[in-house]
């Protein structure tokens, strides 16, 4: 890789002022699993690398007023194994457990995955389906952005060059809500998803009608893809095969996949439909069996 200046501040202020001073010439590194590859392949050649590894305070999972607050430096493995998460938002632990391999999960961080914005990642899909918000800070101040407004294009987000993603807010699911992340792996178990679907369904227990739902897909568009049109179809409806088929075809219309080693665009589009059907069905079942 190309030579660079390495900085390792132990406080947020310093990180932000470094970002402020160097902006485009600087890159943030946390777990490094994605960035080091790009550095090594010389696809990016920053003059400054700002490491968060000595930074305290961004690596805890806290439960407060109806939401989980995830520090940007919490690792995937911690997300997978955290008792709080397993207890309060199991689908989140399930999702992180499916990311890559143990070694990667030991290194990769929550903030890193979101900032990297690779559309075939798993966790951003589930986080978006859970209505997560991200906290961004710069020396100028802080702001919160809903995750479904965060991603803008392949590997691109609303993050400004001087901004740092500090934490993620995930509201606890409402009662009678079932959620699932379905990762379609037609080749090998350690592959990126050909299609990933996170579905979250809240039902009206007495009538068993869908009160509200979220449908988000990975790997089929430049960003994680939330399909509100399909969500709208389901609200107020009862689980039925025709309904799921309808939702699936609406989803397919919204996909815009690329052809790669994980499948040609047209195949991914087809699979998006199948996976959405399966995910919704399983989420719905979970909602029915889920005791508040």
């Amino acid at each position: 890789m190309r030579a660079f200046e390495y900085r390792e501040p132990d406080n947020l202020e310093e990180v932000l002022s470094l970002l402020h001073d160097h902006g485009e010439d600087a890159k943030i590194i946390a777990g490094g699993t994605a960035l080091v590859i790009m550095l090594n392949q010389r696809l990016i050649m920053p003059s400054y690398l700002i490491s968060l590894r000595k930074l305290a305070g961004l690596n805890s999972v806290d439960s407060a007023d109806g939401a989980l607050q995830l520090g940007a430096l919490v690792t995937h493995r911690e997300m997978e194994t955290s008792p709080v998460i397993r207890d309060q938002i199991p689908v989140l632990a399930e999702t992180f457990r499916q990311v890559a391999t143990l070694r990667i999960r030991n290194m990769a961080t929550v903030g890193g995955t979101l900032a990297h914005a690779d559309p075939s990642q798993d966790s951003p899909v589930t986080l978006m389906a859970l209505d997560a918000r991200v906290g961004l800070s710069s020396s100028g101040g802080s702001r919160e952005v809903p995750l479904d407004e965060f991603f803008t294009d392949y590997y691109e987000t609303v993050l400004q060059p001087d901004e740092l993603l500090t934490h993620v807010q995930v509201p606890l699911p409402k009662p009678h809500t079932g959620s699932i992340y379905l990762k379609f792996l037609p080749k090998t178990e350690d592959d990126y998803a050909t299609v990933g679907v996170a579905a979250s369904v809240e039902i009206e227990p007495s009538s068993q009608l869908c009160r509200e739902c979220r449908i988000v897909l990975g790997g089929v568009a430049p960003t994680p893809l939330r399909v509100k049109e399909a969500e709208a179809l389901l609200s107020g409806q009862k689980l039925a095969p025709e309904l799921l088929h309808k939702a699936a075809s609406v989803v397919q219309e919204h996909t815009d996949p690329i052809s790669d080693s994980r499948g040609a665009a047209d195949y991914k589009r087809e699979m998006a439909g199948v996976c959405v059907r399966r995910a919704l069905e399983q989420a719905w079942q979970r909602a029915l069996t889920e005791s508040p």
Partner: protein
Amino acid sequence: MGRIEGPAKVTGEAKYTADVLLPGMIWGKVLRSPLPHAKIVSIDTQEAEQMPGILAVLTAKDLPDLLTGRLVYDMPVLAIDRVRFIGEKVAVVAAEDPDMAEDALASIDVEYEEMPAVFDAHEAMKSEAPLLHPDYRSYAHAPQKFFSDIPNVHSHVTWELGDIDKGFALAKRVFEHTFNTPAVHQGYIEPHASVVAIDPDGRVNVWISNKMPVRARELLADVIEIPEERIVVHLSQIGADFGGKGSLMDAPLCYHLAKRTGRPVKMVMTYTEELMAGNPRHPTSIFLRTGVTEEGQIVARQAKVVFNSGAYAAFKPVPFVNIPGAKDAAGVYGTPHIRIDAYSVYANCVPSGHFRAPGDLQVNFAVESSMDMIAEDLGLDRLEFRKQNFLKDGDWVPGGPQLEEVRVAETLAAAVKASSWNQPKSQPNRGLGLAVSHRLIGTGEANTQLTLKEDGTIQVLTPVPEVGTGAHTILQQIVAETLFLPLDQVRVETASEIFKTDSGSGASRVTYVGGQVVQQAAGELMKLILAAGAKGLGCAENEVVFEGGRVVHSESEGSLSLAEVAKLGGDGKSALRVKKSLNLSEGPPITTFTAQVVELEVDPETGQIRLLDVVTAHDVGTIINPLGHQGQIEGGLLQGVGFGLIEELRMEDGQVSTLNLGDYKLPNIRDIPPLTTVLVEEELGPAPFHGKAIGESSITPTGAAIANAVYDAVGVRFHDLPITAEKVYWALQQHSGGEG
């Protein structure tokens, strides 16, 4: 029983080529062509030469005007005037560390003039196709006997039995099928590495991930113009071969950089370089024409097998510079009239090389798929149709001997018995498929030197490096068994210097040829030991026996330990030593059969295939090392599964798009199918102690067995590998007229 080098490998002490560290060692990195076919107009290295830590920058003009290759010399060390594939080496840099070398590469300026390129072998054979090697016939070692007038065909080999026209005349039905298989990488985890250090006296020391060090020395001598005696190839562990580690790769460049800089030079390919410019299995198309009688007897088989050689034939080791597996295009079926034509064709892609059972997999996929198709068409049971046509004792196989001890029926029966073949079909979208293959044991030359050491141990010197197959453990076992000694009294060590020529490891050769040579040498060494012992005990040779590791004089009960015998030495106190060479050009009349049954399930909504059960049955002789033997079966099988379902070196206009192991997927521990192995043992193998070969058996029929099982499950027939979920999905869409 564990392998001898086990402890070194689990502790990290085992040294592979990339682990060689020498004082003052520097690093080489190459600049590769971004174009599939182009003239090199100019190369500007000035800026690179000025950069910090850069010690040398070389292009073709700095090197002797020579070509190299495993047999035919058709590949330049650095591109001369012209590049023929994306990834061809154009310039090389030596620097204090690899990062500095990389820094310099980007600032080398190469001006190219693009030329028309051809990527598909069949396109390359057309008259209008651009010629990659107009001077092919003038290349050193180009086999005249196999020249062809077809454009870009550098080798055309024909195998014939009987009279093909007569055969088709006898046929009631004639079937034609075409199949295709892609390029696949060997997938060894150790990328190619080379290190060269030149001694003050000019002796050239070479470390190289190459399974044929003696041959490597010979080839290197030619291309760097240094006599063989001045080159020492130091053997290191090899991080797996699977056929792909037989070339010089970057060793000549390391030499030239070492010569230029006066420093030891190391070059290690990145895995991206491996996938872009290694030597993958040949993309192959197989055309079969089969003549069958009314009774379902196969009387004629014509095959046209086209191998895409890529830009150079340099990675093919066999004399006809083609792919041996093509000769199995009649499969395991006694066919009186056969004509097989194999064409190896230049095209502007990564050069292809050998990969475990080269050609066998491709051809077996075609043959065994067609057997099912023909059986169905004739309304015959696919199992019975096979049985009816199986090879029998006394049958000839193309390019092979007249067979003895044919045990194909027993082998298939064993596989079927261990599977759920005869049970009623369990569920929809589930299916069973089977395939059968055979492999003749490889021939070649093997060498060894056995010495009785003063500590009473036997030193076995071999020029064959351990590529992971357990070869050294096998040699140790054979010598110990022959001399009635405990294993720990036999030490296997590697040395290439003392041997002039050797075929090294490959073609399932080691146990057969290598085993025989050490066994014979051990026998002769025993004679010397007894003679020396008798002399020491003051009696005649016929009065001594070898008992409990000692030379014993039967009458006087007087005896000598091996250590004592060693100290006495032979005539003139010379050490007791036997150096032996064995060169087998003719294979034995015994082949080895493999039969596999695959049960799988297809998800009709996604096309995804799940392997439910795999049975692999093997026709084996005496098994010398059960643990190693089973390891060969299991490893080969999973490679076969990869070939059938997953693996493909994807290329677009000659550009490989699967350029790291994140995109070129290898099966992992969660992808393995439930496996049952059946060994059909009989002590009649041609190798020492009636052993047979196993290394290239289990990989071969898997692809066909999977294809046949998919057909059985969902009624769609695949002519191309791999059978990915995507292909199955679309096939099902068409099949069911779209309502998925």
